[in-house]
């Protein structure tokens, strides 16, 4: 099996007149070919090991005898090798740091000989629009090094599809980027200006590839300096552009196209208690905010969130606000990254579950939805509106009765599949661990209440005890639960 990170096929590019000032002989000394043997978790049979797969990607040597590549190249890895140009040896590598929210990773190779003669690449600036770049890597179409050239087409915020929920700055280029290019360097004037990472398949858009630009790369490298990746921080609030004259006048603003209104403050986020709906944000760290939510940053007009993007855990954000006509300053400390990430793809974890009386409980997640594709309206609503309707407050995890392994103990419960676990013996269930703890507590019977279901599922302890081994044996289940503690 062969998996590719970048899922698209583009035919040969037209030749653009660009400066070809990256001598391939030099770049060869920095390039790494990465082979990842990984396992796709099986969310439908969560105790199974999952299907084994292989992936090929590109990486490059950076300072400190490290290899940089994409997170998606090395996700769910079980065995990782690195190869270099003109050396037949396969070196065993391992992941030192991975950032799934910005699709970057840093690898180490045990054998110090690997880095002998290798030249670490340096990072350059955000490239200018229309400037030429070259993409190096090992894409499909052959086994050896491939170079493609193109220009910078666009600099914009983009969804990073690896997590499926995070958006950061990304640079669109028209050089061919194909499966296998992932993790490879994009060079300009001998410096890395980006890491190739995603694109469209050829039937959607052509000559449209994306690279992760250096502001995102630099932020990642700085974040891991303390030996731990903390993830991106954000203000956990929403803003509403203030282009409407009535809205401006009612909020006491002059007609000067500045400021945005706070339209949402997520409970549980860092802005809770600091900002209120109806506050007007006038400046962020001294940068004036326009009425469309942009700020001037180093001469470029960028979204105000770009300021927060570049911050780290425990950094401060200074906001100039106007509340009820009064101007004031609010300083928000980015104490922790947003904790409720049910809608993001998970990697490097085996699926968590609890099996009780043949009832399989799993936390709702993006991977769960992909695996089961449930039609159940309540389940889809809880997934889609988990953040917007702040459902995470009562249910930080949505614990779902995802499947029933048929057994005499649960003969009458088939209709309750896809139910959301709310209570066990009177105890509210907020997480999968709560469920495991409630089921572990000795009782004569277990009264399981599902959200919106007036009929409890009742399992008698004696019946559970009698059914336990029978179910585990019959369905070949090695363990009754995986709470993710060992991950």
């Amino acid at each position, binding site marked *: 099996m062969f998996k590719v990170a970048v899922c698209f096929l583009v035919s040969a590019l037209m030749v653009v007149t660009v400066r070809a000032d990256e001598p391939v002989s030099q770049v060869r000394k920095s390039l790494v070919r990465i082979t990842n043997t990984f396992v796709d978790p099986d969310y439908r049979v969560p105790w199974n090991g999952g299907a084994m797969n292989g992936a090929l990607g590109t990486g490059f040597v950076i300072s400190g005898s490290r290899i940089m590549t994409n997170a998606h190249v090395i996700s769910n890895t079980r065995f990782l090798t690195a190869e270099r140009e003109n050396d037949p040896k396969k070196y065993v590598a391992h992941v030192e740091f991975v950032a799934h929210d910005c699709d970057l990773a840093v690898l180490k190779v045990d054998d110090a000989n690997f880095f002998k003669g290798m030249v670490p690449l340096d990072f350059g600036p955000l490239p200018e629009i229309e400037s030429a770049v070259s993409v190096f890597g090992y894409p499909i179409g052959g086994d050896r090094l491939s170079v493609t050239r193109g220009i910078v087409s666009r600099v914009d915020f983009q969804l990073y599809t690896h997590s499926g929920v995070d958006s950061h700055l990304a640079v669109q280029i028209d050089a061919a980027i194909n499966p296998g290019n992932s993790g490879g360097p994009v060079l300009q004037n001998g410096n890395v200006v980006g890491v190739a990472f995603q694109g469209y398949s050829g039937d959607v858009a052509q000559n449209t590839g994306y690279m992760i630009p250096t502001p995102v790369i630099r932020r990642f490298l700085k974040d891991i300096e303390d030996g731990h990746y903390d993830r991106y921080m954000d203000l956990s*609030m*929403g803003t509403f552009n203030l282009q409407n004259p*009535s*809205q401006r006048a009612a909020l006491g603003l002059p007609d000067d196209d500045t400021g945005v209104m706070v339209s949402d403050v997520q409970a549980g986020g860092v802005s809770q208690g600091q900002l209120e709906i*109806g506050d007007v944000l006038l400046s962020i760290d001294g940068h004036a905010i326009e009425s469309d939510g942009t700020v001037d940053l180093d001469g470029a007009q960028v979204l105000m969130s770009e300021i927060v993007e570049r911050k780290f855990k425990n950094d401060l954000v200074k906001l100039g606000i106007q509340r009820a006509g009064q101007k004031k300053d609010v300083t928000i400390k980015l104490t922790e990254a947003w904790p409720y990430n049910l809608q993001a793809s998970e990697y490097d974890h085996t699926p968590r579950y609890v099996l009780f009386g043949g009832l399989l409980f799993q936390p709702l997640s993006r991977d769960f939805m992909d695996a089961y594709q449930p039609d159940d309206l309540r389940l889809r609503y809880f997934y889609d509106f988990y953040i*917007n*309707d702040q459902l995470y407050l009562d249910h930080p995890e949505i614990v779902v009765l995802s499947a029933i392994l048929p057994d005499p103990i649960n003969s009458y419960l088939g209709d309750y599949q896809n139910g959301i676990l709310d209570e066990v013996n009177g105890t509210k269930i907020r997480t999968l661990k709560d469920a495991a703890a409630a089921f572990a507590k000795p009782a004569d*019977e277990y009264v399981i209440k599902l959200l919106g279901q007036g009929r*409890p599922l009742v*399992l008698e302890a004696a019946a559970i005890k009698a059914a336990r081994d029978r179910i585990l044996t019959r369905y070949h289940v090695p363990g009754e639960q995986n709470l993710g503690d060992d991950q």
Partner: protein
Amino acid sequence: MMTRPLFTTLASLALLSAGATAKPPKKAATTPQPAPTPSVVTAVKDADSPLSIVRVEVTAQAWDFIHPWSKKAPESRSGMGAVLATGEVLVTGDLIANANYVEFERAETGERMAANVEVVDYESDLALLKPVDPAFLKKLQPLEIGDAKVGDRVDVLQLESTGAQVETAALVTTVAVVPYTTAGTPLLAYRLSSSLQYRDGSFTLPLLHDDKLAGLLMRYDPRSQTIDAIPAPVIRHFLAAAKKQPYVGFPRAGLSFAPLRDPQLRHYAGDNDSPASGGVYITAVEPGGPAEQAGIKQGDVLLSLGGNAVDADGNYRDPQYGKQAIQYLISMTTSGSSLPVKLLRAGQPVSVTMTVQHRSSEDYLVEPYLIDKAPKFYVLGGLVLQELSRQYLKEWGAGWEKKAPEKFVYLDRYQDDVSANGRKKIVFLSQVLPTPLTIGDDQLSGTTITKINDRPITCLADLPAALEHPINGFHKIEFAEAPHLLYLDAAQTQAIEPALMRNYGLPAIKSL
């Protein structure tokens, strides 16, 4: 957070189409499908013998819930009506839904006569029509109502274009409570197997058994050749109720239940008898509904209703139709009548009396159907405000449950679970008509309104009073979702109304 969409938008407006002409027949859910059989025509009455049916030609025009100030294009439907001894003609509600004009045609002579709708009940899907001149029906042979049972052969009446009456045989295979087409009301239906040929005007076909009207065809699935028909008992109940003014629909108990076959659940509910002894587990009682008012509680075991023992699946033994769901028993009583109820609560017997009541569509938080009625709306400075109804969601066409905005579908389906917070209706912003006043707001849609000018909005009728109290010259509109807060200049909101009506072709700025 930058990764979360601030607003939901109305997707795929272009897909909207809800022509009522071609109603796909709903497939029978669980019953086995009979093998296709050739059409068996049992009789052809020529045009000279007296008939018991008339053609009913209907011009209907439904309201457009996406543009609630206008109606959709008119459409024509035709069907059969059964002539009754009262000088009235019985048809399905579906046939005359949103009718602008109804006309009868005598099949034998081709004579035509305008008709009026006397009574219509979209829940039992029945309507009574009367010709403008009663003499029109004189030469026709009125039908009596007569029951059929499983195994009976009945005849489905159709008309040839020549005016001849064709009778096609159908076999009654099942008598059971099913959800009816328009409002999903659970009522008794005959399910019949018949190979029915498409003929001119196949809506509302009368079913005859022993020359009596046994039912009216409600839907036909040509693939499985299955007819669902409104049966004689439902017709009789409707006709009895139609004699009283105002018409009050079929009653309900306002409770839901789960089977009590699971021994572990039986023990939990305090019922230590075997499942064979019957009883169902009450899973919910509708707030303010008959069951709740009678003191029935979630967790009770319902043992008997109106003196009839209830089995573990929620059936009782009907003297005529055998094992039937208790919904049938309830629906056949009159709204306002009382039923003795026997319960088991924590193992102890409890007896209560329940007064069943009809619940009309208007009494729901999200109205299940809105037919013959103009949708309410208020266009405020360009913001189109409406009350959420299933009729609005149905504008997304077949499969609307998956195509319409998910949260609204959720609110409709689980409206009894949703905290109403004193709301009578869910007032929401359906779209924004761009005006100078709504610059920057035009992407908003699908947000629900909680307050205007600090006054709670429980239904659209609350708007005029709230709008009389602008705050510092602005209307302050609060939503349950982001952006939570929107302001409109009060003076401009009023000043812009003529231009708004002119530009967008609004006949009125509001309809409450």
